[in-house]
């Protein structure tokens, strides 16, 4: 019996290790899938097999060999050329309405909901995990409730996502049958995998959600968390598969110049822009998801009937905002990587995006990015009101506002200005000799890095608002922080100026030390700050719920800006193909193969945003139905709760 017991202990340990390996393995799965090398090995194996068959001398029908438009490898042609469409009812059946607008709305709505339901389980998993490892039982319970609150919102959204997915597929089949047939001929195996994964994800999600209560203790809780891991792995792979279809349309691979499929779906999936889009979307989804949940919390905060509810939803909004901002900080760098790859793929495409036809939309994007960071800072400053002792730091707000606004002005100064011909003559040229210099990348990189660094500074000040450090080296810690931020500001500004005096390709490289300065402030600054705050003397508790309503409107603004920006950038990414369904392979010959005016596009994006938010309000309202009156403990939080992602 004793041996069995000891064996049981060992088995338990073994089981834990197996569980850890399974979880880590599952988390790595999307990474493994994204390695392009594997794709090429498949291709080589297929060719070797074909060669071997020829050597054996069996009667093999004559096989046509095609050259991959992207990888340049040879492959056996296994599909018809890309269809040459024409403006008729067969290729483009239509209602008395612009088909492209219909597909635009369907795609955008599906993407909004899809992003939301992919992102929320990721941070539900993180919060559940934090709850499980938190020793303070009341905090652990709070985290667990929070995670449950989050997943509850996404469960209705999940059904809507599925419905919108159906709408999208039917819209493609009905309005663009020839194009859709071509795509399915290439991607049908991946599409089947997609459907199966969707089934697996749905099953996991429902067990995960409905099993929350039943699996709240002991080993079952770990099983529950493992389900969250699998839920996210399924979701991420699903997203990656769907991304591959969109990026195939931008940068096709796995087909020859005629668009003939070369038999390896793996190569078509691994097209040039697939991974950059994967990374960008994953981060973007997290920001978006965080923003939506924060908006939900703000909605509940504003409609709260008592202080307890207000405190709970204030805290929920804070955590969701924190997640959104944590992922917002690396997002511009992922965007930079994506754009770099676009340029590397086709210079023409890059210039159309950032210098040419679509450049004005990038100005709007710049405004929105700036607005996001301004709003984030504003929310943090408002949050200081929750804490006694914050007055020490509130006096710095005016200086930070100045820095942010000046950088924002540089950030959004257009290189080419909108002006009347009279103004143009007065100015003596398209570029203004003074502020025109802010229109180039060197100034903008400097400005955006200063904006991000100032946001980090706001966060650090927020963290220490209600604490007085007691560690013996507090003075040196403060000096170190001053030096860190001062050094970062000097380095970023100096490199921004230096960038004007060196060739463009070297200048691009300057963004690396600038980003390093910014990230150093984030990681080293946060680490020093946290260490300094260990055992700090509190000046008062964080009084959750004692925050201005302005802060909640700031959250709404943030969430709406995310939504608008997502619509905008999605439109830009899609319309850069110009008159191609599949870039340089299948031409769009529908009557709508032109690029819309900026005004029309902006109205469409606004319509999509409005439509999404109206339906989302319905989802929020559903979230309040059937809610048991949650007994929220009076919050007595001394430390500022921050998810593990902060350090």
């Amino acid at each position, binding site marked *: 019996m004793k041996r069995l017991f000891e064996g049981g202990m060992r088995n338990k340990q073994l089981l834990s290790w197996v569980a850890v390996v399974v979880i880590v393995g599952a988390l790595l799965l999307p990474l493994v899938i994204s390695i392009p090398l594997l794709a090429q090995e498949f291709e080589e194996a297929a060719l070797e097999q074909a060669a071997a068959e020829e050597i054996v001398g069996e009667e093999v029908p004559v096989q046509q060999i095609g050259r991959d438009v992207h990888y340049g490898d040879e492959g056996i042609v296994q599909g018809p050329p890309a269809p040459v469409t024409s403006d008729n009812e067969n290729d483009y059946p239509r209602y008395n309405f612009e088909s492209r607008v219909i597909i635009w709305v369907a795609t955008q709505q599906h993407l909004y909901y899809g992003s939301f339901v992919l992102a929320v389980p990721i941070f539900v998993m993180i919060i559940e995990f934090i709850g499980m490892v938190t020793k303070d039982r009341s905090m652990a319970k709070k985290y667990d409730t929070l995670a449950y609150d989050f997943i509850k919102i996404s469960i209705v959204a999940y059904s809507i996502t599925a419905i919108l997915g159906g709408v999208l597929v039917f819209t493609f089949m009905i309005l663009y049958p020839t194009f859709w047939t071509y795509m399915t001929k290439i991607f049908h195996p991946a599409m089947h995998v997609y459907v199966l994964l969707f089934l697996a994800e749905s099953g996991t999600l429902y067990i995960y959600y409905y099993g929350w209560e039943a699996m709240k203790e002991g080993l079952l809780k770990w099983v529950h968390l493992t389900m969250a891991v699998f839920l996210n792995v399924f979701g991420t792979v699903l997203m990656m598969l769907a991304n591959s279809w969109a990026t195939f349309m931008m940068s096709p691979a796995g087909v020859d110049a005629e668009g003939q499929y070369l038999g390896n779906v793996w190569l078509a999936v691994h097209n040039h822009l697939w991974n950059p889009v994967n990374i960008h979307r994953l981060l973007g989804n997290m920001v978006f998801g965080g923003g939506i949940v924060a908006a939900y919390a703000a909605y509940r905060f504003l409609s709260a009937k008592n202080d307890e509810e207000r405190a709970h939803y204030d805290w929920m909004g804070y955590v969701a905002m924190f997640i959104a901002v944590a992922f917002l900080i690396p997002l511009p760098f992922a965007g930079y990587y994506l754009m770099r790859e676009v340029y590397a793929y086709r210079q023409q495409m890059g210039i159309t995006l950032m210098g040419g036809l679509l450049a004005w939309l990038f100005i709007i994007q710049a405004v929105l990015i700036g607005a996001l960071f301004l709003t984030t800072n504003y929310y943090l400053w408002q949050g200081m009101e929750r804490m006694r002792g914050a007055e020490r730091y509130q006096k710095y707000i005016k200086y930070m506002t100045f820095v942010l606004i000046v950088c924002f002005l540089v950030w959004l100064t257009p290189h080419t200005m909108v002006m009347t011909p009279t103004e143009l003559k007065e100015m003596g040229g398209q570029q203004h000799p003074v502020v025109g210099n802010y229109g180039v990348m060197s100034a903008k990189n400097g400005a955006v890095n200063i904006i991000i660094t100032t946001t980090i500074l706001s966060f650090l000040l927020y963290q220490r608002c209600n604490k007085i450090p007691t560690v013996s080296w507090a003075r040196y810690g403060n000096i170190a922080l001053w030096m860190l931020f001062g050094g970062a500001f000097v380095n970023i500004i100096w490199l921004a100026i230096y960038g004007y005096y060196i060739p463009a390709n070297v200048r691009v490289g300057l963004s690396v030390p600038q980003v390093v300065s910014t990230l150093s402030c984030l990681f080293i600054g946060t680490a020093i700050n946290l260490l300094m705050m260990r055992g700090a003397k509190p000046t008062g508790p964080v009084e959750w719920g004692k925050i201005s309503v*302005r802060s909640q409107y700031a959250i709404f603004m943030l969430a709406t800006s995310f939504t608008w920006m997502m619509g905008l950038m999605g439109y830009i990414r899609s319309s850069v193909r110009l008159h191609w369904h599949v870039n340089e392979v299948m031409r769009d010959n529908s009557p709508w193969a032109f690029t819309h005016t900026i005004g029309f596009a902006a109205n469409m994006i606004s319509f999509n945003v409005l439509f999404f938010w109206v339906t989302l309000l319905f989802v929020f309202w559903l979230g309040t139905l059937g809610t048991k009156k949650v007994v929220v403990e009076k919050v007595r939080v001394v430390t500022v709760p921050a998810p593990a992602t902060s350090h």
Partner: protein
Amino acid sequence: MPGFIDGMMPIQLLAELLLIIAIFILGAMILDKKMGIHIPMLLQAVFVFIAGWWYYKYRIDPPLPFSVRAIYQVMISVGIFMWVSSAEKGWIEFKRPIIAVLDAKTPLTWWVRAVLLVVLPLSASGMTYINLAPSLSEPIELRTVHPAPPAAVKVHGKKFPLQTSESPFRIDENGEYSDHVQDAHVMDNPFDPDGIDYMQNVKEGGEIFFQNCHFCHGDNLNGRGLYAFAFNPIPANFTDPGTLAQLQETFVFWRVAKGGPGLPREGFPWASAMPPWEQHLTTEEIWKVILFEYWHTKYPPRTWGEE
């Protein structure tokens, strides 16, 4: 008031703004702490708003287009809002006179409210009238300054892929193509008869430039030639870091060879009087004039490779 110093303008502007704000904050602090005069928040906000407007309207020369000033002014307003409402105490102080006017409990506030109730709708209608009244000025035109280039361009029967083509005259002492040859010889005298081939080609390019291009692009290559102001917009300023310096040499080759008529459809309508120079110059002459333009402005052409 001294003007902007050439070469330092962007930094000077930021430094001046910093100075204005520093004086403002310091002044308010001295008044408050040392002299006991507290300037109401609303008044401070109005001051910052007007100071910003004044600076961008009158300090910057040449004048900024309205669209840019409007953006700046909106941003200044946003900044003011963020500042006054960042803490509850300041926000209450800021709102107090506004609420007092709306409540109109004293004769003064009653009169202020009455005047505002007349002035505000009148201003709104006045602005509406100004915006809607027919004007003789030309409408605003959104121009795409950087056209997307084609993948390849055919000049005098030869195809040049823009991504990979190189100038045949950007060559070092060994006759090899070099991205660095310009840096090494940027201070050389083009009229030196013993100069290397690269400098001879720069000189020939210069001759072509002054025979054909400088009438519009100017003898300093700054887009202010004899005929420049007959065009709207005026010709490209090569000394601006946003023109030649941003472009691959092949891009410039395409633009020179094909001129205004060769611009792509996507950015239509184009406003360019540039002739297609392939009809007047040989391929070699086009490459040489480009060589000269880069040499003269000291900007190296954009490359995509690692340095």
